[in-house]
C-alpha cells in the first residue's frame, strides 16, 4: 500500500514540477533584477525656465545654440508696431562637458555685453536605488559690458565687469508640474551712484506646467532684497509658452526685462510690467550632437 502510495506521489511530483518550472521562467528573470536609478528627466524643456537658468544642462558632448530675442515695449503703440520695430538679441553657445558640467559663452546687444558661465549639477533628482527629492545646480557667471565709455571718462577695465553666483533648486512634482527656487547674488563692479548697491540678493521662483508631451507654460519671478536709489527698477517677471519639437525648443514669452543675461535682468530690469513695459520675446534653442 505504502509502496503504491509513494509511486503515485512520485508521479505527482513530476506532474507538478513541470508546470512549476514553466511558470517560473519569467519569475526567474524578475528576481535579482538589478534596480536602476530613475533620474527625473525633462524637469524643464531646456536650459532656461524663461529668462533665468533652469537646472537642465546640455547632455555631455551636446552643443546648444540659443538665439534669444526681445522686441521693444508693447506700450509704445502703433507707430513702433507695439515694439516689433526694435530688437535686443543675445546669441549663446552652451556645451555639455560631462553629465554634470556645462560651460557657455554669449554676447548680447544690450550694452554690448559678453557673458560666460559654468553650471554644475550637484544633485540630480532621482528615485529607485537612491531617493533624492530635488535637483540642485550651481551657477557662476561673469559679464563684460563692452559699450564704449563716454568721451574723456577715466573708467578702467574692471568697471566693465559684473558677476552672478546662483543656486538652482528644482523639483519635478509630476510629469506636468516642475518648480524651481533660484537664490542669487549679483555683484556689479560699477554702479551709477554711491547710493546704489553694488550687491543684490535675489530669490527667483519659476515653474512649468507641461500640458502636453511637447508643450508647456512657464512662469518666472525674481524678488530683489535691494533696490537702487538713483533710478527706477523692478523685479523681473516673465510668462511664456515652451514648444519642444525634438531638436529645437521654442520659448515665446512676455517679460518686463529687456536684457537676457543674468546680471542684467536680475538687478537691472527697467520695465514696469503693470504699466505695459512688456517685451515680447523668444528663445530658439537648437541642439547639435558633437560626439
Amino acid at each position: 500500500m505504502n509502496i503504491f502510495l509513494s509511486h503515485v506521489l512520485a508521479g505527482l511530483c513530476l506532474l507538478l514540477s513541470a508546470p512549476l518550472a514553466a511558470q517560473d521562467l519569467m519569475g526567474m528573470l524578475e528576481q535579482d533584477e538589478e534596480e536602476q536609478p530613475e533620474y527625473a528627466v525633462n524637469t524643464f524643456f531646456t536650459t532656461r525656465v524663461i529668462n533665468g537658468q533652469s537646472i537642465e544642462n546640455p547632455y555631455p558632448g551636446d552643443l546648444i545654440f540659443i538665439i534669444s530675442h526681445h522686441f521693444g515695449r508693447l506700450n509704445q503703440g502703433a507707430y513702433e508696431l507695439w515694439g516689433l520695430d526694435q530688437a535686443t538679441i543675445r546669441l549663446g553657445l552652451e556645451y555639455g562637458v560631462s553629465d554634470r558640467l556645462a560651460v557657455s559663452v554669449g554676447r548680447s546687444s544690450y550694452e554690448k555685453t559678453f557673458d560666460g558661465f559654468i553650471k554644475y549639477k550637484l544633485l540630480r533628482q532621482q528615485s529607485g536605488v537612491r531617493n533624492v527629492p530635488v535637483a540642485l545646480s550651481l551657477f557662476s557667471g561673469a559679464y563684460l559690458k563692452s559699450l564704449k565709455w563716454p568721451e574723456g571718462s577715466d573708467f578702467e577695465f574692471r568697471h566693465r565687469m559684473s558677476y552672478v553666483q546662483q543656486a538652482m533648486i528644482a523639483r519635478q512634482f509630476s510629469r506636468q508640474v516642475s518648480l524651481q527656487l533660484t537664490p542669487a547674488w549679483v555683484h556689479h563692479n560699477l554702479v551709477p551712484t554711491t547710493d546704489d548697491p553694488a550687491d543684490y540678493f535675489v530669490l527667483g521662483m519659476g515653474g512649468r506646467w507641461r500640458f502636453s508631451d511637447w508643450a508647456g507654460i512657464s512662469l518666472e519671478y525674481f524678488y530683489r532684497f535691494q533696490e537702487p536709489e538713483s533710478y527706477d527698477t523692478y523685479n523681473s517677471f516673465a510668462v511664456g509658452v515652451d514648444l519642444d519639437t525634438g531638436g529645437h525648443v521654442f520659448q515665446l514669452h512676455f517679460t518686463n526685462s529687456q536684457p537676457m543675461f543674468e546680471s542684467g535682468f536680475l538687478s537691472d530690469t527697467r520695465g514696469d510690467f503693470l504699466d505695459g513695459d512688456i517685451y515680447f520675446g523668444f528663445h530658439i534653442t537648437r541642439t547639435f550632437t558633437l560626439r
Partner: protein
Amino acid sequence: MLRKTLLVFVLGVLITPVLFAQVYLTRNGTIRFFSEASLENIEATNRQVSSALNIENGEFVFRLPMRSFAFEKALMQEHFNDNFVESHKYPNASFEGEIHGFREADLLSGEEIEVMVEGELTIKDVTKGITERGTLRMEDGDILGSAVFVIKPEEYNIRIPTRYVRNIASEIEVFVDVRLSDKL
C-alpha cells in the same frame, strides 16, 4: 512510513524542477532596433536583456528595461523614454512564449537550426501575439539565440507626431541576440 513517503513527496516537488528543468539563462542579452526614414536612420541598443529558455519544453521568455536603450544622441534617448515609450509608466518590455521545432539532440550537434518563436510581446502594456523565425545554435555549452522581426510602434500605443514622419519609420526592425548559459 507515511511520514517518510510525504517527505519524499515534498523533496521531490522541491528538487525535480532543479533536476529536470533544463533552463538556460542570460542577464546581458542584446536587443537592437533600427528605424530607417527619409531624413535619418535611428539605431539603439539595449545590452541588459534578461532571457531564459527551457529546452525541455521550448518555453522562452525575455524581459528588458526600456531605459537601457542607448542611442547615438542623448536627446533622442530622452525623447524615446519620456515621450514615446513612457518608461516612467512602462519601465519594461517582455516576451513570453515558446520556441517550436527543435529537439535537444539537434542543438547538441552544434549546427545552427531554424526555429519558430511564438508568443506574446508586451510593450507599453500592450500585448500582441507574434510568430517569428529565429535561429538557435550551441557553442561552448551555451545556446546562442537570435531573431529579427519587425514591429509597428502604433500597434503598441507608441504615438509618433506626424512631424516625425521623415525621422521615424512606421516599421521598426528589431534584432534579438542572446547567449544563454546553464550556469544559473
